[in-house]
């Protein structure tokens, strides 16, 4: 049982951090788009 709680924690903690960072990046992106003359700002990939 303890191992499964640890496993759940190991999945939930990075998920919560990931969603929070997504929110921060979205806000930052909106700000960049408002203040930038360039269109098509670079897509950032975090996948590997």
């Amino acid at each position: 049982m303890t191992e499964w709680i640890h496993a759940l924690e190991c999945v939930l903690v990075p998920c919560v951090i990931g969603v929070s960072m997504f929110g921060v990046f979205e806000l930052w992106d909106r700000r960049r788009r408002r203040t930038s003359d360039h269109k098509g700002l670079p897509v950032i990939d975090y996948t590997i």
Partner: protein
Amino acid sequence: MGPVVLASGQEVSVFGVAALGIGVGYFAGMFGIGGGFIMTPLLVVIFGVPLPTAVGSGLCQMVGTSLVAFLRHRRLTQGEVRFDALMLPGSLLGAELGARTLTWLSEAGQLTIEGRSIPWISLIVETLYAALLVWVAMSYLRNAGPGRDKLDYLRPGPLSRVALGPRLGFPAVGLAGVSASLVGYIGLGIGFLSGLLGIGGGVALNPVLIYGYGFPIRHAVGTGIAVLFTTAVVGTVAHSLRGHVELGLAVPLLVGGTLSAQLGAVSSRHLPGATLARIQSVLIFTAVAALAWDLLSKFR
């Protein structure tokens, strides 16, 4: 903030791990890759983290990074969802097989030649890492020649012509009659690499999609993310049940890496694609040299 104490009793500096995350994340953002394929071997070489723990913690941080990427790409509607769906069952099976193989290797003891010994896990996994990294660096270098920034990858690649049924079309990337079975086997292979090496698989998947199938780059980076996220979750669960995940390592890597990736992506706008590919290849070969040095130092 104190050091992270691993299950093996070894202490690792949180700031050191965060600095590694920041460094790798910066280059990852600059080159449009995730960076886990460099992060995991560097955890072993620089901090002496046991391989299973480096792999498990790398997968754990990838749960966060792939979730951010999934949400971002979904907003941009990039990627071929059918490809993801075909790869998913194989990649889940592959992730579990990879985790089992790693556990088996960690219990396999040592290889002894003329009185010198080296753990089987280091020999096999670090050699596989080095081979994978060399292959990736070579494919980037091969495609960094003059004129290769042009859209010549848009032609259907050789894998899209494999006649292994059933065959399906991928309208988002303009491909028809692609072998669904082959895509399933690719998922299995990518999942196995994830479970065994702690990488998301994008490092292996992107060259396959771009040069093998002829996916446009923006669709290639958006394809496979749902699979990577699911594989990372399954791999994390599999490794955490075996005691191979340290949240104290994964969290600083995740936070440092994702923040600095933003800065790296902005810096990359000032460099041409071919130059970026060459710099990336040099960095990858540096990681290969570090791995080789680590292997040689263990062989005593």
